[in-house]
């Protein structure tokens, strides 16, 4: 079949009505023929603008030209030089605002499906047992990485490739951070994709010690003074959930998105053979409009609920990826836009019975540049509900900053770090949500990568 140079090769997905009732992956990805067809659309630009759109600067035309020739293993080695988590990034990166936004093809037609190609290459490598190129010889220097999320895994992988002896300390019982507890199975399968990317990082020589809460079981000062680590990278994420502070928020049936998603993703509550319970709910409202809100809503839907997204601005301002909003709508999630909760209604046993909301309209732009939502007086109404999930964003956990001498935070509790990730404490670097506040997987990976280079320079010159 001839490829239309202006249009992408379409990617196969599970039917919306079918996937609304299961936790299998929504997007099925390209097969080899489809990937090779799509690859022919790449112009192999000499000044490839897509690379500048990628926070970890993957040689995108380089790997796509290998795909074009059907050399998938070679394509994988090209990507591996830049990224430790291609199967993850191919799924969850906002390519439409990064690499693909810069694609020359996008000027007259649709940009090359860079994300779907990356995903295909990574999945093919996993299924065919192709591993990333191994570490050089060890240099005898030890680096501790706090947190095994995207920032930590990337930093650890890069340092291991340079010969450092790296240990990752993870507070939870499984590695992956937000990839394990936050992003649902139907977007990012755990046992196949996440587990194997973590395994690849381990194969580079990285040790992962789970169940170690830094700041409690040990401290950064002890790691450096007693356990002999020459440098530390903090990629501990932004773990603390926010609540609205409205009446009724402590009622039974009100969850943070973190709790709801952790029960389902990390603890696998949706599976009968796991012990952790989850209250699926019959009528659920998710408050918020980001990717996490979409994830929570689509999880509740799959657990059998009617689900509303309640968001105070309009559709144009939804912070979630367009693809996620599109998928959520297809699956039957109802969007109550320009709507803000004012109170959660509770029965005498403390269970949620509903939520009072007020309609909003957009006023003048605020500090974020988005038009500020203002209440329309007298427009209150009540949603009948049994479950409310708050997806209002998260902030960094003060556990590490409060137990490490000389580590400064700003007023949002984010670690202070320069453009290379260096914190206010010598030998200690940081990156990802712990520094920026809640952001994306790929930005965290970019920060992990930058910090790995800075740590290498710091330790080489010492």
């Amino acid at each position, binding site marked *: 079949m001839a490829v239309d140079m202006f249009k992408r090769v379409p990617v196969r997905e599970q039917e919306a009505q079918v996937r609304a009732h299961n936790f299998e992956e929504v997007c099925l990805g390209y097969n080899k023929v489809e990937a090779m067809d799509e690859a022919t659309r790449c112009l192999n630009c000499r000044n490839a603008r897509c690379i500048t759109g990628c926070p970890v600067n993957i040689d995108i035309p380089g790997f796509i030209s290998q795909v074009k020739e059907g050399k998938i293993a070679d394509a994988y080695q090209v990507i591996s030089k830049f990224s430790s988590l291609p199967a993850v990034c191919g799924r969850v990166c906002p390519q439409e605002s990064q690499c693909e936004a810069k694609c020359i093809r996008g000027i007259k037609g649709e940009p090359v499906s860079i994300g779907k190609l990356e995903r295909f290459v990574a999945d093919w490598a996993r299924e065919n047992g192709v591993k990333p190129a191994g570490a050089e010889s060890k240099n005898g220097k030890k680096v501790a990485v706090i947190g095994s999320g995207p920032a930590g895994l990337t930093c650890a992988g890069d340092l291991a490739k340079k010969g450092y002896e790296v240990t990752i300390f993870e*507070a939870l019982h499984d590695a992956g951070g937000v990839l394990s507890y936050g992003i649902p199975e139907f977007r990012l399968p755990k046992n196949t994709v996440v587990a194997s990317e973590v395994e690849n990082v381990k194969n580079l020589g990285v040790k992962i010690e789970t169940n170690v809460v830094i700041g*409690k079981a040990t401290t950064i000062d002890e790691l450096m003074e007693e356990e002999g680590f020459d440098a530390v990278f903090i990629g501990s994420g932004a773990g*603390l959930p926010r609540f609205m502070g409205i009446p009724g*928020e402590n009622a*039974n049936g009100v969850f943070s998105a973190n*709790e709801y998603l952790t029960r389902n993703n990390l603890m696998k509550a949706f599976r009968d053979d796991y012990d952790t319970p989850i*209250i699926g709910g019959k009528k659920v409202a998710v408050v918020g409009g980001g990717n996490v809100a979409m994830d929570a809503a689509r999880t509740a839907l799959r657990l059998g609920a009617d689900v509303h997204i309640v968001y105070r601005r309009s559709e144009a301002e939804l912070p979630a990826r367009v693809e996620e909003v599109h998928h959520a709508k297809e699956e039957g999630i109802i969007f109550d836009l320009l709507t803000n909760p004012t109170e959660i209604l509770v029965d005498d046993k403390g269970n949620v019975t509903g939520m009072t909301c007020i309609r909003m309209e957009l006023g003048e732009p605020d500090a974020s540049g988005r038009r500020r939502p203002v209440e329309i007086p007298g427009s209150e109404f009540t949603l009948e509900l049994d479950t409310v999930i708050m997806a209002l964003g998260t902030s960094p*956990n003060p556990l590490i900053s409060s137990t490490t001498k000389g580590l400064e935070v700003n007023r949002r509790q984010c670690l202070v770090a320069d453009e290379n990730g260096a914190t206010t404490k010598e030998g200690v670097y940081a990156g990802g949500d712990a520094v920026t506040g809640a952001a994306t997987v790929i930005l965290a990976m970019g920060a992990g990568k930058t910090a790995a280079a800075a740590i290498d320079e710091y330790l080489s010159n010492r």
Partner: protein
Amino acid sequence: MYKILKKEYLANRIWLMDIEAPRVAKHCMPGQFVIVKMDEVGERIPLTICDYDREAGIVTIVFQTVGASTERMATYEVGESFRDFVGPLGRPSDLTEEPVEELAKKKILFICGGVGTAPVYPQVKWLKEQGIEADVVIGARSQDLLILEKEMGEVAAHLYIATDDGSKGFKGNTTDMLNELVLNRGIAYDHVVAIGPMIMMKFVCLATKKLGIHTIVSMNPIMVDGTGMCGACRLQVGDEIKFACVDGPEFDGHLIDFDAAMKRQQMYKTLEGQALLAYREGLTHKGGACGGDK
């Protein structure tokens, strides 16, 4: 993996286990807790630290079987291992962070009920090691439900036993015992620590409020991660929302909204009951007509 080195039945479905966990043993302090996940499919269960041996790298935990998960946990034997054991979590007891000379000025009373006796033991033991004396009340419905009586006797200045049926010690509940000590025997306590069932802590706090004695309680709400991430353990403390896992587990008992906390405790009761039946009798009770399909 975290190996079980010792297992002992105490009383009233309460078990004690010694667990090999050097990182936790090295840093844990009285007042803190751990989370145990038995195996791949297990829940994360917050449990009390009852004792620790820093040199040997051992942490002693005590738990009562109250549902399917804790019943399953009690089937583990010496030599077997738990998949995950994380801690120490929460803040150490406020008492351990006060200067010893300040502590010496205080007349301290610990009030424990049921399995809540376990987290009190390391606090009293730690105080004794600093040369500080403290009195302890252990309450139970009946004599055969008491735990850690001998161990507590060795570290407490005065140990008072209170049983509802009068089978041992004072006849009455812990609040009655408190009133007896303060009002009838004229002991002037200026600091009370109460740890036990929510309902016991509520009534102790009502009594100490009347008596004007500063009171600390240790809360044990529903938790998932135990590091501040999920917010399941949130509590109303005065006019603030606090997370028991990182802000607690100890709080000023006079600021806790116990009625709200007890309602939250009920949240998973139906699901837990179904899980327990399923564990004991097979999957016949799960799903279907009862609507218990998790």
